[in-house]
Protein backbone atom coordinates (compact mmCIF):
# COMPACT_ATOMS: atom_id res chain seq x y z
CA UNK A 1 0.00 0.00 0.00
CA UNK A 2 1.16 3.45 -0.79
CA UNK A 3 1.48 5.35 2.46
CA UNK A 4 0.05 8.83 2.75
CA UNK A 5 3.60 10.10 3.23
CA UNK A 6 6.39 8.64 5.30
CA UNK A 7 8.27 11.81 6.13
CA UNK A 8 7.53 15.28 7.38
CA UNK A 9 7.84 17.92 4.64
CA UNK A 10 10.55 19.62 6.71
CA UNK A 11 12.63 16.42 6.63
CA UNK A 12 12.56 16.34 2.82
CA UNK A 13 13.35 20.05 2.69
CA UNK A 14 16.43 19.52 4.85
CA UNK A 15 17.51 16.49 2.81
CA UNK A 16 17.20 18.42 -0.46
CA UNK A 17 19.08 21.37 1.02
CA UNK A 18 21.92 19.01 1.94
CA UNK A 19 21.97 17.40 -1.53
CA UNK A 20 21.73 20.69 -3.40
CA UNK A 21 25.39 21.84 -2.98
CA UNK A 22 26.61 18.46 -4.23
CA UNK A 23 24.45 18.68 -7.36
CA UNK A 24 25.49 22.28 -7.94
CA UNK A 25 29.20 21.45 -7.65
CA UNK A 26 28.78 18.40 -9.88
CA UNK A 27 27.15 20.53 -12.55
CA UNK A 28 29.81 23.25 -12.34
CA UNK A 29 32.58 20.64 -12.53
CA UNK A 30 31.26 18.59 -15.46
CA UNK A 31 32.84 19.50 -18.75
CA UNK A 32 35.96 19.32 -20.83
CA UNK A 33 38.14 21.40 -18.57
CA UNK A 34 38.16 21.06 -14.84
CA UNK A 35 37.78 24.26 -12.91
CA UNK A 36 38.98 24.71 -9.36
CA UNK A 37 38.24 27.68 -7.16
CA UNK A 38 41.78 28.97 -7.70
CA UNK A 39 41.38 28.94 -11.50
CA UNK A 40 38.67 31.57 -11.43
CA UNK A 41 41.11 34.42 -11.03
CA UNK A 42 42.40 36.39 -12.83
CA UNK A 43 39.17 37.20 -14.57
CA UNK A 44 40.65 36.99 -18.08
CA UNK A 45 41.64 33.34 -17.65
CA UNK A 46 39.98 30.75 -19.86
CA UNK A 47 38.66 28.94 -16.80
CA UNK A 48 36.96 32.14 -15.64
CA UNK A 49 35.39 32.65 -19.06
CA UNK A 50 34.14 29.07 -19.25
CA UNK A 51 32.73 29.42 -15.76
CA UNK A 52 30.93 32.72 -16.32
CA UNK A 53 29.79 32.23 -19.91
CA UNK A 54 29.02 28.51 -19.98
CA UNK A 55 28.94 26.64 -16.71
CA UNK A 56 27.14 29.14 -14.47
CA UNK A 57 24.30 30.06 -16.86
CA UNK A 58 23.85 26.38 -17.71
CA UNK A 59 23.53 25.49 -14.03
CA UNK A 60 21.02 28.28 -13.44
CA UNK A 61 19.05 27.29 -16.54
CA UNK A 62 18.73 23.66 -15.48
CA UNK A 63 17.79 24.68 -11.94
CA UNK A 64 15.14 27.15 -13.10
CA UNK A 65 13.74 24.98 -15.91
CA UNK A 66 13.63 21.93 -13.61
CA UNK A 67 11.85 23.90 -10.90
CA UNK A 68 9.29 25.16 -13.41
CA UNK A 69 8.67 21.69 -14.84
CA UNK A 70 8.35 20.14 -11.37
CA UNK A 71 5.88 22.67 -10.04
CA UNK A 72 3.77 22.90 -13.20
CA UNK A 73 3.62 19.09 -13.32
CA UNK A 74 2.21 19.04 -9.79
CA UNK A 75 -0.26 21.81 -10.68
CA UNK A 76 -1.49 20.09 -13.85
CA UNK A 77 -1.99 16.87 -11.88
CA UNK A 78 -4.10 18.73 -9.34
CA UNK A 79 -6.13 20.37 -12.08
CA UNK A 80 -6.83 17.07 -13.86
CA UNK A 81 -7.08 15.34 -10.47
CA UNK A 82 -4.80 12.60 -11.71
CA UNK A 83 -1.18 11.75 -10.92
CA UNK A 84 -0.62 10.57 -14.51
CA UNK A 85 -1.14 14.00 -16.04
CA UNK A 86 2.04 15.57 -17.33
CA UNK A 87 2.38 18.62 -19.59
CA UNK A 88 4.35 16.55 -22.12
CA UNK A 89 1.91 13.61 -22.10
CA UNK A 90 -1.27 15.61 -22.50
CA UNK A 91 0.14 17.66 -25.38
CA UNK A 92 0.82 21.00 -23.69
CA UNK A 93 4.53 20.88 -24.49
CA UNK A 94 3.76 19.84 -28.07
CA UNK A 95 1.34 22.73 -28.48
CA UNK A 96 3.95 25.12 -27.14
CA UNK A 97 6.55 23.52 -29.44
CA UNK A 98 4.38 23.89 -32.53
CA UNK A 99 3.80 27.55 -31.75
CA UNK A 100 7.53 28.04 -31.21
CA UNK A 101 8.46 26.41 -34.53
CA UNK A 102 5.80 28.44 -36.32
CA UNK A 103 7.41 31.54 -34.85
CA UNK A 104 10.84 30.44 -36.07
CA UNK A 105 9.50 29.84 -39.60
CA UNK A 106 6.99 32.65 -40.08
CA UNK A 107 7.64 35.02 -37.23
CA UNK A 108 10.67 36.95 -38.42
CA UNK A 109 8.81 40.21 -37.90
CA UNK A 110 7.70 39.19 -34.42
CA UNK A 111 11.25 38.24 -33.51
CA UNK A 112 12.41 41.63 -34.74
CA UNK A 113 10.00 43.41 -32.39
CA UNK A 114 10.18 41.14 -29.36
CA UNK A 115 13.71 39.77 -29.67
CA UNK A 116 14.39 36.98 -27.21
CA UNK A 117 10.80 37.23 -25.89
CA UNK A 118 9.12 36.22 -29.17
CA UNK A 119 9.65 32.48 -28.80
CA UNK A 120 8.66 32.26 -25.10
CA UNK A 121 5.57 34.37 -25.70
CA UNK A 122 4.34 32.29 -28.62
CA UNK A 123 5.16 29.02 -26.82
CA UNK A 124 3.17 30.27 -23.83
CA UNK A 125 0.17 31.06 -26.03
CA UNK A 126 0.45 27.68 -27.77
CA UNK A 127 0.68 25.88 -24.43
CA UNK A 128 -2.25 27.82 -23.02
CA UNK A 129 -4.44 27.01 -26.01
CA UNK A 130 -3.68 23.27 -25.78
CA UNK A 131 -4.24 23.11 -22.00
CA UNK A 132 -7.57 24.83 -22.47
CA UNK A 133 -8.44 22.49 -25.35
CA UNK A 134 -7.56 19.32 -23.40
CA UNK A 135 -9.54 20.48 -20.36
CA UNK A 136 -12.46 21.50 -22.56
CA UNK A 137 -12.67 18.19 -24.43
CA UNK A 138 -11.92 15.91 -21.46
CA UNK A 139 -14.53 17.57 -19.25
CA UNK A 140 -17.93 15.98 -18.91
CA UNK A 141 -20.77 16.45 -16.45
CA UNK A 142 -18.91 14.23 -13.98
CA UNK A 143 -15.64 16.18 -14.16
CA UNK A 144 -12.53 15.44 -16.20
CA UNK A 145 -12.09 11.99 -17.71
CA UNK A 146 -8.55 10.63 -17.50
CA UNK A 147 -8.88 8.36 -20.53
CA UNK A 148 -10.16 11.20 -22.68
CA UNK A 149 -7.42 13.47 -21.35
CA UNK A 150 -4.66 11.03 -22.36
CA UNK A 151 -6.30 10.32 -25.73
CA UNK A 152 -6.61 14.03 -26.46
CA UNK A 153 -2.93 14.28 -25.52
CA UNK A 154 -2.04 11.60 -28.08
CA UNK A 155 -4.05 13.42 -30.74
CA UNK A 156 -2.47 16.78 -29.96
CA UNK A 157 1.02 15.29 -29.93
CA UNK A 158 0.34 13.75 -33.35
CA UNK A 159 -1.14 16.95 -34.77
CA UNK A 160 1.76 19.03 -33.44
CA UNK A 161 4.32 16.56 -34.81
CA UNK A 162 2.82 16.67 -38.29
CA UNK A 163 2.45 20.44 -38.01
CA UNK A 164 6.16 20.74 -37.22
CA UNK A 165 7.01 18.45 -40.16
CA UNK A 166 4.89 20.61 -42.43
CA UNK A 167 6.58 23.76 -41.19
CA UNK A 168 9.99 22.22 -41.85
CA UNK A 169 8.91 21.52 -45.42
CA UNK A 170 8.07 25.18 -45.95
CA UNK A 171 11.16 26.65 -44.33
CA UNK A 172 14.30 27.76 -46.15
CA UNK A 173 17.71 26.25 -45.48
CA UNK A 174 18.67 28.68 -42.75
CA UNK A 175 15.39 28.46 -40.83
CA UNK A 176 15.36 24.68 -41.22
CA UNK A 177 18.74 24.51 -39.54
CA UNK A 178 17.41 26.72 -36.75
CA UNK A 179 14.31 24.55 -36.30
CA UNK A 180 16.22 21.26 -36.26
CA UNK A 181 18.69 22.69 -33.80
CA UNK A 182 15.93 23.96 -31.54
CA UNK A 183 13.94 20.72 -31.71
CA UNK A 184 16.86 18.70 -30.35
CA UNK A 185 16.35 20.60 -27.15
CA UNK A 186 18.79 21.11 -24.37
CA UNK A 187 20.09 24.10 -22.52
CA UNK A 188 23.71 24.01 -23.67
CA UNK A 189 23.42 26.82 -26.21
CA UNK A 190 21.58 29.29 -24.03
CA UNK A 191 23.02 32.08 -21.97
CA UNK A 192 22.26 34.83 -19.53
CA UNK A 193 19.36 36.27 -21.56
CA UNK A 194 17.47 32.99 -21.17
CA UNK A 195 18.35 32.85 -17.46
CA UNK A 196 16.72 36.28 -17.18
CA UNK A 197 13.57 35.13 -18.98
CA UNK A 198 13.19 32.05 -16.80
CA UNK A 199 13.76 34.11 -13.65
CA UNK A 200 11.13 36.58 -14.78
CA UNK A 201 8.63 33.75 -15.30
CA UNK A 202 9.36 31.56 -12.30
CA UNK A 203 8.53 34.30 -9.81
CA UNK A 204 4.84 34.76 -10.73
CA UNK A 205 4.34 31.09 -11.64
CA UNK A 206 5.77 29.63 -8.43
CA UNK A 207 4.22 32.26 -6.16
CA UNK A 208 0.84 32.02 -7.88
CA UNK A 209 0.73 28.24 -7.75
CA UNK A 210 2.00 27.89 -4.18
CA UNK A 211 -0.62 30.41 -3.03
CA UNK A 212 -3.26 28.12 -4.60
CA UNK A 213 -2.01 25.08 -2.64
CA UNK A 214 -4.89 24.84 -0.20
CA UNK A 215 -7.48 25.38 -2.95
CA UNK A 216 -5.81 22.69 -5.07
CA UNK A 217 -6.29 20.22 -2.21
CA UNK A 218 -10.01 20.98 -2.23
CA UNK A 219 -10.05 20.52 -6.00
CA UNK A 220 -8.73 16.98 -5.49
CA UNK A 221 -11.93 16.14 -3.56
CA UNK A 222 -13.78 16.57 -6.86
CA UNK A 223 -14.98 19.59 -8.80
CA UNK A 224 -18.53 19.53 -7.43
CA UNK A 225 -17.22 18.90 -3.92
CA UNK A 226 -14.81 21.85 -4.18
CA UNK A 227 -17.58 24.09 -5.44
CA UNK A 228 -19.78 23.08 -2.50
CA UNK A 229 -16.90 24.15 -0.24
CA UNK A 230 -17.03 27.62 -1.77
CA UNK A 231 -14.30 27.28 -4.41
CA UNK A 232 -14.93 28.85 -7.79
CA UNK A 233 -13.66 25.92 -9.87
CA UNK A 234 -13.87 27.83 -13.15
CA UNK A 235 -11.74 30.68 -11.85
CA UNK A 236 -9.29 28.27 -10.25
CA UNK A 237 -8.90 26.35 -13.54
CA UNK A 238 -8.31 29.60 -15.39
CA UNK A 239 -5.48 30.54 -13.03
CA UNK A 240 -3.98 27.04 -13.29
CA UNK A 241 -4.14 27.00 -17.10
CA UNK A 242 -2.46 30.39 -17.46
CA UNK A 243 0.29 29.75 -14.90
CA UNK A 244 1.08 26.18 -16.02
CA UNK A 245 1.13 27.14 -19.68
CA UNK A 246 3.39 30.09 -18.87
CA UNK A 247 5.82 27.83 -17.01
CA UNK A 248 5.81 25.00 -19.55
CA UNK A 249 5.72 27.26 -22.60
CA UNK A 250 8.74 29.26 -21.54
CA UNK A 251 10.77 26.15 -20.69
CA UNK A 252 9.89 24.66 -24.09
CA UNK A 253 10.86 27.92 -25.81
CA UNK A 254 14.22 28.00 -24.05
CA UNK A 255 15.10 24.30 -23.83
CA UNK A 256 12.91 22.40 -26.31
CA UNK A 257 11.00 19.26 -25.41
CA UNK A 258 12.06 18.06 -21.97
CA UNK A 259 9.50 15.45 -20.98
CA UNK A 260 8.58 13.47 -17.88
CA UNK A 261 10.12 15.81 -15.26
CA UNK A 262 6.66 17.03 -14.35
CA UNK A 263 5.51 13.43 -13.96
CA UNK A 264 8.40 11.84 -12.07
CA UNK A 265 9.21 14.63 -9.65
CA UNK A 266 5.77 15.30 -8.08
CA UNK A 267 5.21 11.55 -7.88
CA UNK A 268 8.39 11.06 -5.85
CA UNK A 269 7.54 13.97 -3.58
CA UNK A 270 4.04 12.58 -3.07
CA UNK A 271 5.49 9.18 -2.14
CA UNK A 272 7.78 10.80 0.42
CA UNK A 273 5.60 13.45 2.08
CA UNK A 274 2.04 12.79 0.90
CA UNK A 275 -0.26 14.63 -1.49
CA UNK A 276 -0.81 17.95 0.37
CA UNK A 277 -0.30 20.59 -2.34
CA UNK A 278 0.86 23.19 0.16
CA UNK A 279 4.07 21.16 0.48
CA UNK A 280 3.95 19.26 -2.79
CA UNK A 281 4.21 22.36 -4.99
CA UNK A 282 7.30 24.01 -3.43
CA UNK A 283 9.06 20.67 -2.87
CA UNK A 284 8.38 19.61 -6.47
CA UNK A 285 10.02 22.85 -7.60
CA UNK A 286 13.05 22.14 -5.41
CA UNK A 287 13.40 18.47 -6.39
CA UNK A 288 12.68 19.33 -10.05
CA UNK A 289 15.58 21.80 -10.04
CA UNK A 290 17.99 19.19 -8.68
CA UNK A 291 16.58 16.40 -10.89
CA UNK A 292 17.01 18.32 -14.14
CA UNK A 293 20.46 19.55 -13.16
CA UNK A 294 21.51 15.97 -12.44
CA UNK A 295 19.98 14.82 -15.75
CA UNK A 296 21.99 17.53 -17.48
CA UNK A 297 25.17 16.32 -15.77
CA UNK A 298 24.42 12.84 -17.11
CA UNK A 299 23.73 14.25 -20.57
CA UNK A 300 27.20 15.78 -20.54
CA UNK A 301 29.03 12.89 -18.89
CA UNK A 302 27.58 9.71 -20.43
CA UNK A 303 29.14 9.98 -23.88
CA UNK A 304 31.71 12.72 -23.16
CA UNK A 305 33.14 14.61 -24.91
CA UNK A 306 29.92 14.49 -26.95
CA UNK A 307 26.55 15.31 -25.36
CA UNK A 308 23.17 13.63 -25.28
CA UNK A 309 20.13 15.88 -25.73
CA UNK A 310 18.67 16.63 -22.30
CA UNK A 311 15.18 15.52 -23.36
CA UNK A 312 16.59 12.08 -24.23
CA UNK A 313 17.98 11.62 -20.72
CA UNK A 314 14.79 12.69 -18.96
CA UNK A 315 12.74 10.41 -21.25
CA UNK A 316 15.11 7.49 -20.58
CA UNK A 317 14.50 7.92 -16.85
CA UNK A 318 10.88 9.02 -17.05
CA UNK A 319 9.53 6.59 -19.67
CA UNK A 320 10.16 3.40 -17.67
CA UNK A 321 9.02 5.24 -14.55
CA UNK A 322 5.72 6.09 -16.24
CA UNK A 323 5.26 2.46 -17.31
CA UNK A 324 5.91 1.22 -13.79
CA UNK A 325 3.32 3.68 -12.47
CA UNK A 326 0.72 2.29 -14.87
CA UNK A 327 1.62 -1.30 -13.89
CA UNK A 328 1.40 -0.40 -10.21
CA UNK A 329 -2.04 1.13 -10.71
CA UNK A 330 -3.23 -1.83 -12.78
CA UNK A 331 -2.45 -4.20 -9.95
CA UNK A 332 -4.77 -2.04 -7.88
CA UNK A 333 -1.92 -1.34 -5.51
CA UNK A 334 -3.03 2.17 -4.75
Amino acid at each position, binding site marked *: *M*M*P*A*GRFQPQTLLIALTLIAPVVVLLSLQTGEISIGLADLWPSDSIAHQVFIELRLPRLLLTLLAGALLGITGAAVQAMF*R*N*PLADPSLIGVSAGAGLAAVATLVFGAGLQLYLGAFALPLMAFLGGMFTTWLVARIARSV*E*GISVTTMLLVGIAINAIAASGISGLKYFSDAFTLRQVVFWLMGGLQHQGWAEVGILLLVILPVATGLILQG*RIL*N*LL*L*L*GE*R*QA*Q*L*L*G*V*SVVRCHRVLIVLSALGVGVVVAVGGMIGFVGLVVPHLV*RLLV*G*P*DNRYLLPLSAFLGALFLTLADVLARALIAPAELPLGVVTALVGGPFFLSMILYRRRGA*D
Partner: protein
Amino acid sequence: MLRLKVEQHRRGGRDLLKEIELSFPAGQFSVILGPNGAGKTTLLKLISGQEPVQRGSVTLADQPLAQIDLLQRARQMAMLTQEHPLNFPFTALDVVKMGCHPLGISPDEAEEKARHLLTVMELAELSKRNYLTLSGGEKQRVQLARVLAQLGEESQVLLLDEPLSGMDLRHQHLTLAYLRAQAKQGLTVIAVLHDPVLAARYADRLVLLKQGRLSAEGKVAEVWQSDTLSALYDLPLQVSLENGEPQLYTADLPELNDNLFGAQPRQD
Protein backbone atom coordinates in the same frame (compact mmCIF):
# COMPACT_ATOMS: atom_id res chain seq x y z
CA MET B 1 -36.56 28.70 5.70
CA LEU B 2 -35.56 27.14 2.40
CA ARG B 3 -38.07 27.44 -0.43
CA LEU B 4 -38.00 25.62 -3.73
CA LYS B 5 -40.30 26.12 -6.67
CA VAL B 6 -39.78 24.19 -9.88
CA GLU B 7 -42.23 24.69 -12.70
CA GLN B 8 -40.07 22.68 -15.06
CA HIS B 9 -36.50 21.46 -15.21
CA ARG B 10 -35.43 19.58 -18.34
CA ARG B 11 -32.35 17.81 -19.61
CA GLY B 12 -31.91 15.77 -22.78
CA GLY B 13 -35.47 16.54 -23.92
CA ARG B 14 -36.94 15.00 -20.76
CA ASP B 15 -38.63 16.61 -17.78
CA LEU B 16 -36.43 15.79 -14.78
CA LEU B 17 -38.63 17.69 -12.36
CA LYS B 18 -42.01 19.29 -12.84
CA GLU B 19 -44.51 21.27 -10.77
CA ILE B 20 -42.81 20.98 -7.41
CA GLU B 21 -43.23 23.48 -4.63
CA LEU B 22 -41.66 22.75 -1.26
CA SER B 23 -40.49 24.67 1.76
CA PHE B 24 -38.16 23.31 4.39
CA PRO B 25 -38.36 25.06 7.78
CA ALA B 26 -35.44 25.22 10.19
CA GLY B 27 -35.26 22.43 12.72
CA GLN B 28 -36.88 19.82 10.49
CA PHE B 29 -35.37 16.58 9.24
CA SER B 30 -36.88 15.76 5.83
CA VAL B 31 -36.20 12.60 3.89
CA ILE B 32 -36.77 12.34 0.14
CA LEU B 33 -37.88 8.90 -1.01
CA GLY B 34 -38.58 7.58 -4.46
CA PRO B 35 -37.66 4.97 -7.04
CA ASN B 36 -34.49 5.20 -9.15
CA GLY B 37 -34.55 8.06 -11.61
CA ALA B 38 -37.36 9.88 -9.78
CA GLY B 39 -35.32 13.11 -9.68
CA LYS B 40 -34.09 12.94 -6.07
CA THR B 41 -30.47 13.83 -6.82
CA THR B 42 -31.53 16.51 -9.28
CA LEU B 43 -33.70 18.04 -6.57
CA LEU B 44 -30.69 18.26 -4.22
CA LYS B 45 -28.56 19.73 -7.03
CA LEU B 46 -31.13 22.47 -7.53
CA ILE B 47 -31.40 23.19 -3.79
CA SER B 48 -27.61 23.36 -3.44
CA GLY B 49 -27.25 25.59 -6.48
CA GLN B 50 -25.06 23.18 -8.44
CA GLU B 51 -27.59 23.44 -11.24
CA PRO B 52 -29.68 26.58 -11.74
CA VAL B 53 -33.43 25.92 -11.89
CA GLN B 54 -34.59 26.42 -15.46
CA ARG B 55 -38.11 27.59 -14.63
CA GLY B 56 -38.59 28.25 -10.94
CA SER B 57 -36.64 29.53 -7.97
CA VAL B 58 -34.70 28.57 -4.86
CA THR B 59 -34.53 30.96 -1.93
CA LEU B 60 -32.72 30.72 1.37
CA ALA B 61 -34.04 33.05 4.10
CA ASP B 62 -35.97 34.88 1.33
CA GLN B 63 -32.79 35.54 -0.62
CA PRO B 64 -32.50 33.98 -4.11
CA LEU B 65 -29.75 31.37 -4.00
CA ALA B 66 -28.16 32.70 -7.20
CA GLN B 67 -27.45 35.99 -5.43
CA ILE B 68 -25.44 34.36 -2.64
CA ASP B 69 -21.78 34.01 -3.62
CA LEU B 70 -20.16 30.59 -3.51
CA LEU B 71 -18.20 31.01 -0.29
CA GLN B 72 -21.15 32.50 1.59
CA ARG B 73 -23.33 29.70 0.24
CA ALA B 74 -20.80 27.15 1.52
CA ARG B 75 -21.05 28.74 4.98
CA GLN B 76 -24.85 28.51 4.98
CA MET B 77 -25.26 25.17 3.25
CA ALA B 78 -23.26 21.94 3.34
CA MET B 79 -23.85 18.97 1.10
CA LEU B 80 -22.71 15.36 0.92
CA THR B 81 -22.66 14.25 -2.72
CA GLN B 82 -23.30 10.72 -3.89
CA GLU B 83 -19.86 10.25 -5.48
CA HIS B 84 -16.48 10.92 -3.92
CA PRO B 85 -13.88 11.06 -6.70
CA LEU B 86 -10.88 11.69 -4.40
CA ASN B 87 -7.97 9.75 -5.89
CA PHE B 88 -4.97 10.95 -3.84
CA PRO B 89 -3.57 9.37 -0.65
CA PHE B 90 -4.59 11.93 1.98
CA THR B 91 -5.06 10.77 5.56
CA ALA B 92 -8.64 10.48 6.83
CA LEU B 93 -7.92 13.39 9.18
CA ASP B 94 -6.70 15.61 6.31
CA VAL B 95 -9.86 14.88 4.32
CA VAL B 96 -12.11 15.87 7.23
CA LYS B 97 -10.06 19.02 7.90
CA MET B 98 -10.71 20.19 4.33
CA GLY B 99 -14.37 20.50 5.26
CA CYS B 100 -13.52 23.43 7.54
CA HIS B 101 -12.32 25.52 4.57
CA PRO B 102 -15.26 27.93 4.21
CA LEU B 103 -15.34 28.63 7.96
CA GLY B 104 -11.94 30.33 7.93
CA ILE B 105 -10.96 28.91 11.31
CA SER B 106 -7.38 28.38 12.49
CA PRO B 107 -5.53 25.11 11.67
CA ASP B 108 -5.62 24.13 15.35
CA GLU B 109 -9.38 24.64 15.57
CA ALA B 110 -9.85 22.72 12.32
CA GLU B 111 -7.78 19.84 13.65
CA GLU B 112 -9.76 19.73 16.88
CA LYS B 113 -13.06 19.85 15.04
CA ALA B 114 -11.98 17.13 12.60
CA ARG B 115 -10.78 14.85 15.41
CA HIS B 116 -14.07 15.34 17.24
CA LEU B 117 -16.11 14.42 14.15
CA LEU B 118 -13.93 11.38 13.43
CA THR B 119 -14.68 10.26 16.97
CA VAL B 120 -18.41 10.85 16.42
CA MET B 121 -18.23 8.70 13.28
CA GLU B 122 -16.24 6.10 15.28
CA LEU B 123 -13.20 6.54 13.05
CA ALA B 124 -10.72 7.91 15.59
CA GLU B 125 -8.35 4.94 15.15
CA LEU B 126 -8.31 5.44 11.39
CA SER B 127 -7.50 9.15 11.47
CA LYS B 128 -3.92 8.66 10.24
CA ARG B 129 -4.83 5.98 7.69
CA ASN B 130 -4.54 6.57 3.95
CA TYR B 131 -8.06 7.41 2.77
CA LEU B 132 -7.61 5.31 -0.39
CA THR B 133 -7.05 2.15 1.65
CA LEU B 134 -10.30 2.45 3.62
CA SER B 135 -13.35 0.29 2.89
CA GLY B 136 -16.33 1.76 1.05
CA GLY B 137 -18.35 2.30 4.22
CA GLU B 138 -15.38 3.85 6.03
CA LYS B 139 -14.76 6.23 3.13
CA GLN B 140 -18.41 7.22 3.25
CA ARG B 141 -18.14 7.97 6.98
CA VAL B 142 -14.98 10.04 6.43
CA GLN B 143 -16.74 12.05 3.71
CA LEU B 144 -19.76 12.52 5.95
CA ALA B 145 -17.47 13.76 8.75
CA ARG B 146 -15.90 16.17 6.22
CA VAL B 147 -19.31 17.60 5.34
CA LEU B 148 -20.28 17.88 9.02
CA ALA B 149 -17.01 19.79 9.58
CA GLN B 150 -18.37 22.41 7.21
CA LEU B 151 -21.17 23.27 9.65
CA GLY B 152 -20.58 26.47 11.59
CA GLU B 153 -22.40 29.38 13.19
CA GLU B 154 -23.95 30.55 9.92
CA SER B 155 -25.08 27.11 8.75
CA GLN B 156 -28.73 26.76 7.90
CA VAL B 157 -29.04 23.75 5.61
CA LEU B 158 -27.47 20.29 5.47
CA LEU B 159 -28.11 18.21 2.34
CA LEU B 160 -27.19 14.54 2.03
CA ASP B 161 -27.44 12.37 -1.07
CA GLU B 162 -27.62 8.74 0.08
CA PRO B 163 -25.53 9.30 3.22
CA LEU B 164 -25.87 5.66 4.33
CA SER B 165 -24.43 4.04 1.20
CA GLY B 166 -21.97 1.30 2.11
CA MET B 167 -22.48 1.74 5.85
CA ASP B 168 -23.12 -1.15 8.22
CA LEU B 169 -26.33 -1.22 10.26
CA ARG B 170 -24.80 0.30 13.38
CA HIS B 171 -23.43 3.30 11.51
CA GLN B 172 -26.64 3.77 9.54
CA HIS B 173 -28.48 4.27 12.82
CA LEU B 174 -25.68 6.33 14.31
CA THR B 175 -25.71 8.63 11.28
CA LEU B 176 -29.47 9.11 11.25
CA ALA B 177 -29.57 9.75 15.00
CA TYR B 178 -26.83 12.36 14.57
CA LEU B 179 -28.69 14.01 11.68
CA ARG B 180 -31.89 14.14 13.70
CA ALA B 181 -29.99 15.73 16.57
CA GLN B 182 -28.56 18.33 14.18
CA ALA B 183 -32.10 19.18 13.05
CA LYS B 184 -33.24 19.48 16.67
CA GLN B 185 -30.58 22.15 17.12
CA GLY B 186 -32.18 24.26 14.40
CA LEU B 187 -30.63 23.07 11.15
CA THR B 188 -32.70 22.24 8.07
CA VAL B 189 -31.65 18.68 7.23
CA ILE B 190 -32.68 17.07 3.93
CA ALA B 191 -31.52 13.58 3.01
CA VAL B 192 -32.17 11.23 0.11
CA LEU B 193 -32.56 7.69 1.44
CA HIS B 194 -33.48 4.33 -0.04
CA ASP B 195 -34.73 2.62 3.11
CA PRO B 196 -38.29 3.82 3.87
CA VAL B 197 -38.31 2.18 7.31
CA LEU B 198 -35.20 4.03 8.46
CA ALA B 199 -36.61 7.20 6.92
CA ALA B 200 -39.93 6.84 8.78
CA ARG B 201 -38.13 6.07 12.01
CA TYR B 202 -35.85 9.11 12.08
CA ALA B 203 -37.37 11.79 9.85
CA ASP B 204 -39.92 14.44 10.80
CA ARG B 205 -41.26 14.58 7.32
CA LEU B 206 -41.25 12.50 4.14
CA VAL B 207 -41.15 13.86 0.59
CA LEU B 208 -42.10 11.29 -2.03
CA LEU B 209 -40.94 11.83 -5.59
CA LYS B 210 -41.97 9.82 -8.61
CA GLN B 211 -41.11 10.51 -12.25
CA GLY B 212 -40.04 14.03 -11.45
CA ARG B 213 -43.24 14.97 -9.69
CA LEU B 214 -44.26 15.24 -6.07
CA SER B 215 -46.32 12.14 -5.32
CA ALA B 216 -46.90 12.93 -1.64
CA GLU B 217 -45.34 14.85 1.23
CA GLY B 218 -46.08 15.52 4.86
CA LYS B 219 -45.44 14.37 8.40
CA VAL B 220 -44.38 10.73 8.65
CA ALA B 221 -47.73 9.63 10.13
CA GLU B 222 -49.61 11.22 7.21
CA VAL B 223 -47.51 9.73 4.45
CA TRP B 224 -46.78 6.33 5.99
CA GLN B 225 -49.77 4.63 4.32
CA SER B 226 -49.77 1.31 2.52
CA ASP B 227 -51.39 2.61 -0.67
CA THR B 228 -49.21 5.73 -0.82
CA LEU B 229 -45.98 3.76 -0.54
CA SER B 230 -47.18 0.92 -2.76
CA ALA B 231 -47.95 3.45 -5.48
CA LEU B 232 -44.56 5.13 -5.00
CA TYR B 233 -42.51 1.98 -5.49
CA ASP B 234 -44.94 0.02 -7.74
CA LEU B 235 -44.73 -2.76 -5.21
CA PRO B 236 -47.48 -4.21 -3.00
CA LEU B 237 -46.58 -3.06 0.52
CA GLN B 238 -48.19 -3.29 3.95
CA VAL B 239 -47.00 -0.67 6.40
CA SER B 240 -47.83 0.10 10.00
CA LEU B 241 -46.74 2.64 12.57
CA GLU B 242 -47.46 1.40 16.06
CA ASN B 243 -45.99 3.35 18.96
CA GLY B 244 -43.94 5.30 16.44
CA GLU B 245 -42.25 2.09 15.31
CA PRO B 246 -42.49 1.83 11.49
CA GLN B 247 -42.94 -1.62 9.99
CA LEU B 248 -43.01 -2.63 6.37
CA TYR B 249 -43.94 -5.95 4.76
CA THR B 250 -43.52 -6.74 1.11
CA ALA B 251 -45.95 -9.10 -0.58
CA ASP B 252 -44.91 -11.44 -3.36
CA LEU B 253 -44.43 -9.92 -6.74
CA PRO B 254 -46.59 -12.02 -9.10
CA GLU B 255 -45.54 -10.17 -12.25
CA LEU B 256 -41.87 -10.45 -11.31
CA ASN B 257 -42.22 -14.21 -10.88
CA ASP B 258 -43.96 -14.43 -14.24
CA ASN B 259 -41.22 -12.42 -15.88
CA LEU B 260 -38.48 -14.47 -14.32
CA PHE B 261 -39.85 -17.91 -14.89
CA GLY B 262 -41.98 -17.32 -17.94
CA ALA B 263 -39.10 -15.77 -19.88
CA GLN B 264 -37.08 -17.64 -22.46
CA PRO B 265 -33.82 -19.00 -21.05
CA ARG B 266 -30.95 -16.72 -22.08
CA GLN B 267 -28.89 -18.10 -24.91
CA ASP B 268 -25.54 -16.58 -23.86
